[in-house]
């Protein structure tokens, strides 16, 4: 029977799972909101995959995103990879010759520069979350517009207003100010999109040589307003892959496949779909061994300790 590959991306806002066939082609995806409950949502996602694909044989599984370590120990991942590498791998796989990857997710944004399919440079937002998904979410909620329609509003604008985009706090007060001056909603939203893009290009992409083809991925790529603003600023078309929202998951699934094949591993470390029935719990405590007072987290599977992290020193290394 042929073996499929799974990728699990546990991010701050969404948790995504991608399924690839034995050759690394895309088969299916699940996109869920993390809602601050990663363990529950990972299980929920796996259950959905299992329902849709009966008796799926898993040849390898990878995790990524800010919750990659947790997902990794929960599921028994073959690879646990950071989101920069996985996004680059996925983009290069889907579009050979891609030179620039713009990725904007829930709470971070990054740029990756590639040459001949290999990342050669990258940057990630360090101090500021303005222009990421969470901020757009928040503004959509404040304006009482579903986030899915946010971008469409921007397209209707004839004269976008100029919004201060340096910082999300200032951007919000500037938006309120412009609303009170009487500007139309579409013009304010379009202005916000442009401000976000300017902020991205001046901070995250500062000093990077952006070359065509440019791929735009991550949850925010669904926003046509942002896409249009990027195309205007960069003066080139911006490609949005069909599965732009699960590229991280696709990337880590591809890496899991590569790892299993490279090591000629017979069996994946995947614990199987039965993990959805396991009981995962965690607790934490403050170590009193020294003034660092590290917060140690214990992860339990059916009351058995399977992982522990948070320490600065080797004191709690043994599980």
């Amino acid at each position, binding site marked *: 029977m042929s073996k499929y590959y799974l990728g699990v991306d546990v991010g701050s806002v969404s948790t995504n799972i991608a399924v690839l066939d034995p050759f690394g082609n895309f088969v299916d995806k699940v996109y869920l909101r993390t809602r601050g409950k990663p363990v529950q949502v990972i299980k929920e996602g796996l259950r959905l995959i299992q329902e849709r694909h009966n008796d799926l044989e898993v040849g390898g599984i990878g995790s990524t995103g800010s919750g990659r370590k947790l997902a990794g120990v929960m599921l028994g991942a073959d690879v646990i990879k950071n989101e920069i*590498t996985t996004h680059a791998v996925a983009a290069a796989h889907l579009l050979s010759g891609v030179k620039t990857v713009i990725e904007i997710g829930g709470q971070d944004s990054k740029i990756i520069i590639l040459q001949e399919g290999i*990342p050669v440079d990258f940057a990630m937002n360090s101090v500021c979350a303005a222009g990421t998904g969470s901020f757009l979410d928040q503004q959509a909620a404040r304006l009482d517009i579903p986030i899915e329609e946010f971008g469409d509003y921007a397209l209707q604008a004839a004269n976008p207003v100029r919004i201060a985009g340096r910082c999300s706090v200032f951007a919000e007060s500037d938006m309120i100010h412009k609303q009170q001056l009487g500007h139309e909603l579409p013009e304010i939203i379009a202005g916000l999109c442009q401000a976000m893009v300017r902020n991205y290009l001046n901070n995250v992409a500062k000093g990077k040589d952006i070359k065509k083809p440019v791929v735009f991925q991550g949850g925010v790529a669904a926003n046509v307003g942002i896409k249009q603003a990027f195309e205007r600023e960069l003066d080139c078309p911006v490609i949005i892959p069909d599965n732009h929202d699960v590229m991280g998951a696709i990337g880590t699934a591809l890496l899991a496949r590569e790892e299993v094949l490279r090591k000629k591993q017979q069996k994946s470390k995947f614990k199987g779909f039965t993990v959805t029935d396991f009981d995962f719990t965690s607790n934490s405590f403050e170590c009193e061994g020294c*003034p660092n007072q590290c917060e140690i987290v214990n992860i339990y599977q059916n009351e058995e300790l399977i992982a522990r992290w948070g320490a600065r020193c080797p004191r709690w290394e043994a599980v």
Partner: protein
Amino acid sequence: MRKITFPHMGELRIPVKALIQELGQEALEPPKISKKTLDLGVQYSPEFACLPLKINLGNFIEALEMGADTIIMGGGCGPCRFGFYGEVQQELLREMGYQFEMLVLEPDLLEDYRRLKQVFGRVNCRKIARAIYLAIKKLRALDSIYKMVLSGRASEKVEGEVDRLYDHFLEQLDLATERARINQLHKEYSNLIKATAGPLKKGVEINIGVLGEIYLIIESFVNLNIEKKLGQLGVIVRREINMSSWLAHFLHLSNEMKLIEKAARGYLRNFIGGHGLDTIGNTVRYARKGYDGIIQVAPFTCMPEIIAQTILPAVSVREGIPVLSLIFDEHTADAGLNTRLEAFVDLLTRKKRKQLEGSIYHEQVLSGG
């Protein structure tokens, strides 16, 4: 007898303690840098001062609370702000109500000698010579063994073995009081570390040069153990900035600076304070040596390294070496650093693998295999 304290900077405590003790005074080592040290330093420092000032201040507060009455601190004369930190810290500590004497060492050997004499009183010349000799001996053993640790972590057979040995070495070195014992420890531990070597964890050899501001490079608490993290990722860390090299430069015993200035030509011609010029010059040199990547570390608001950072993209492109710049302050978190380091190492590894596979392919084609 005085109780003399000093700021922490990596394992500098070991030679400094030896020096103070040999000169007949009591060395009071501040508690190991911890979150508490950082919190104290941040609380009493101006916000936009860089991390070294804050941590130093935290060290001093903790040491004064333990009963220290004299502080030895490094000075300088710009353009890096560090040269003035001793004075600032003195003011801050006095405002807080502490009583102490502070000795700031400046790049003026005669003046330093005069000030040291005030603190240590009359000490005979042979004793001074022995104290300096022993301190330098410890410093050099320390830096030499640590260099082995930096490369050894990439190929240790048992995870964490090299660090365990290094910790034992530090304990023993701290206790040593004789030249012969230091030599013996140096030899013993270099053999032990050599014996841990197995195959490279990564399968390919990745060399990363760590450059930037010296305090951030040397003090692992503030750089969040970056060198250890790189070692665990299977990288050989090349780092030539340490206290031995600094001392050699300070005493005009090395021609390193000439080589750096020469390499930096075409990018930067002026001394811009701190290690800014070194960062540019060494990036060029490391690229020409064939290292795979450069990581620049600096504290937030560090003027020399900010200048260097703006020049580095051009150096990176022209010399063909990837550069990752990391800025640290009291808000820097582990998770963000891990993601960047891992991604950078992945990037270098994939590039190297492709190069190697490319050359194998090339050979096969040429040999008809």
